């Protein structure tokens, strides 16, 4: 009884039909849309904040990352000039020691950018009774991001910290990815008890707060570089296993798997030659989506003292060091924290873009 017209029943309305028409073929608009969506700024941030420093840390960093100059401890960043604050310190000094001559001298020295309060003759530190007062107001460009409590250059440490973040995330994701992908493919391919068993473990693993598990593991096997990587890999594998299993289940049903089996290929060969190439895109997308997560995990573990051991310059450790002197020296925690946030933000944006390009069905993972 329905009207037969050439428009399909429930067919596209004007706007939808137009969108569908636009999707046909490759129009300039579509190419431009793709280009425009490419996350340019995040990519630049990643390159300059993470990748270049990580690779060229030894060449680029102006100072040693773990050995500091105690005389230059807690110097502020280069752009901080001695302003009001130094005058306040001078005022405090005056309250304690009303020696006008040396104070004027000190002020003059402060004005000319010398950071230490010197005596009337211009040498050494002024002894004000019991306390030796050293005024570190202005920073110098020798240490662009300032120095920490042990006089280590924050910038140099951040560059080496980038190397640690990158290395830990790459290795942990590689390890977790191999483990998860392997188990996922195996579960899908074998099915039965093995599948059910693995998936139950995945459920429990995915449900449990990861840091707690990590902390227990760290306590059990002791902290260190390899521990951090293993712990994070153990936290990661479950998601790979579940997603890859789902994909592999679908692929297993396809004809070419049967054909390979008929041709006498071994199980391992079928998995590696036929299933793996088909889930590879997903593995890559999952990996990029995980990088930000892994950087946060590593930084958090290090911050809690259960990750990278001191005196390595991990970002999380630097933030923990900075917390102790947060009232006086913000630069020690601030720059590493901002570096983490910017890196993870950029990585997430890039990962989203890549997912939409390569594997849109992962959107809900």
């Amino acid at each position: 009884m329905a009207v037969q017209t050439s428009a399909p029943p429930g067919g596209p309305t004007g706007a939808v039909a137009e969108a569908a028409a636009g999707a046909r073929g490759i129009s300039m608009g579509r190419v431009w849309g793709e280009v425009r969506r490419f996350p340019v700024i995040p990519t630049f941030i990643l390159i300059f904040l993470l990748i270049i420093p990580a690779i060229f840390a030894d060449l680029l960093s102006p100072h040693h990352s773990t050995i500091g100059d105690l005389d230059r401890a807690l110097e502020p960043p280069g752009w901080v000039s001695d302003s009001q604050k130094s005058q306040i310190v001078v005022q405090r000094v005056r309250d304690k020691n009303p020696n006008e001559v040396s104070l004027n001298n000190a002020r003059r020295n402060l004005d000319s950018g010398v950071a230490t309060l010197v005596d009337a003759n211009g040498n050494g530190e002024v002894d004000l009774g019991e306390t030796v007062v050293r005024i570190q107001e202005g920073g110098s460009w020798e240490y662009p991001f300032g120095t920490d409590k042990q006089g280590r250059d924050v910038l140099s440490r951040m560059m080496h910290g980038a190397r640690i973040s990158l290395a830990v995330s790459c290795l942990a994701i590689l390890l977790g990815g191999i483990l998860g992908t392997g188990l996922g493919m195996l579960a899908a391919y074998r099915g039965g008890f093995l599948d059910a068993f693995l998936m139950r473990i995945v459920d429990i693993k995915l449900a449990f707060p990861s840091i707690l598990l990590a902390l227990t593991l760290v306590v059990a096997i002791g902290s260190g570089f390899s521990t951090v990587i293993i712990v994070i890999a153990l936290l990661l594998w479950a998601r790979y296993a579940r997603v890859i299993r789902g994909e592999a289940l679908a692929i297993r049903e396809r004809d070419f798997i049967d054909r390979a089996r008929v041709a006498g290929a071994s199980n391992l060969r079928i998995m590696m030659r036929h299933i793996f190439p088909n889930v590879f895109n997903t593995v890559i997308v999952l990996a990029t989506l995980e990088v930000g997560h892994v950087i946060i995990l590593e930084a958090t573990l290090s911050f809690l003292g259960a990750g990278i051991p001191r005196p390595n310059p991990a970002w999380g450790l630097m933030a923990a060091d900075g917390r102790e002197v947060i009232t006086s020296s913000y630069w020690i925690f601030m720059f590493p924290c901002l570096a983490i946030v910017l890196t993870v933000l950029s990585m997430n944006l890039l990962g989203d873009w890549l997912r939409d390009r390569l594997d849109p069905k992962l959107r809900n993972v």
Partner: protein
Amino acid sequence: MQRFIVLRILQGLLAVFVISLIVFALSRVAGDPLAAILDDEAGKEQIERLRQSWGLDKPLHVQYFTYMRRLLTGDLGVSFRWDRPVLELIAERLPATVQLSSFALVITGIIAFPIGVLSAVRKDSWFDAGGKMFAILGQSAPTFAVGLILMWLFAVQLGWLPTSGRGGFKHMLLPGFALGYYNVAAIMRLTRSSMLDVLDTEYVKLARIKGIPEWKIVWKHCFRNALIGPLTYFSLIFAVLITGSVVIETVFAWPGLGLMVIEAINSKDHIVVQAVVMLFALLYVGINIATDITYAYVDPRIRYG
């Protein structure tokens, strides 16, 4: 409904069992528990006597049952570091953690739901864009960085709030917000997207056709439906709270369980770490069951399904 609850509880017990196995296994992987407390000079006999009295000479499965029986009777062992029964330590620290986490949860609820709903109602407005920025940032900032930056800004620079420690309401604000931020961001987005779905449904159209005032449509017809999405993530929210409380208590020197765990880890006090992990696991599983039951209450399709 009863069958549903029983099933959930059984599943929860299974999870607790598996976790207890893992924790037990890890405690044995960690090496001889005696090595940590005895120094090299301890005589062989003395070690042997302690080993027997702790049951360490028995087979592993017997050890596990002994361990579990002790846990169930409330004997969690004695901390090396504090030299006090772990149960006592936990009883002392738990209220601080519960207080902070509940406050963070309340903050999450108060901020996330209204902003999520309003972002959906005013989709594509400046308000919505701001919410999106806030959420993206929340998913990219580690909890400790949020805590440190908040502390520096509001306690150090502006001097409005205390930097650390437990005290009055003012002490709770910074750690509470820092602990809640990630969840606020996540729930806000979830509420927004499920609210958008709901606003687009036919029953909302029908409600409008009925002539119901818009505020009532949003808060009666949509909100409860939109809640179902974020509610399924409640266990995730709780996981974030547990993880976050460990971090935030460390940042703000908040004397709760999280801080205690970190202190215990730093002094290799395994017994405390295990006990707290088991406790968190139990809590987590319990909350999961409670979530499922609430979920069934909100969505009748599940209750009668």
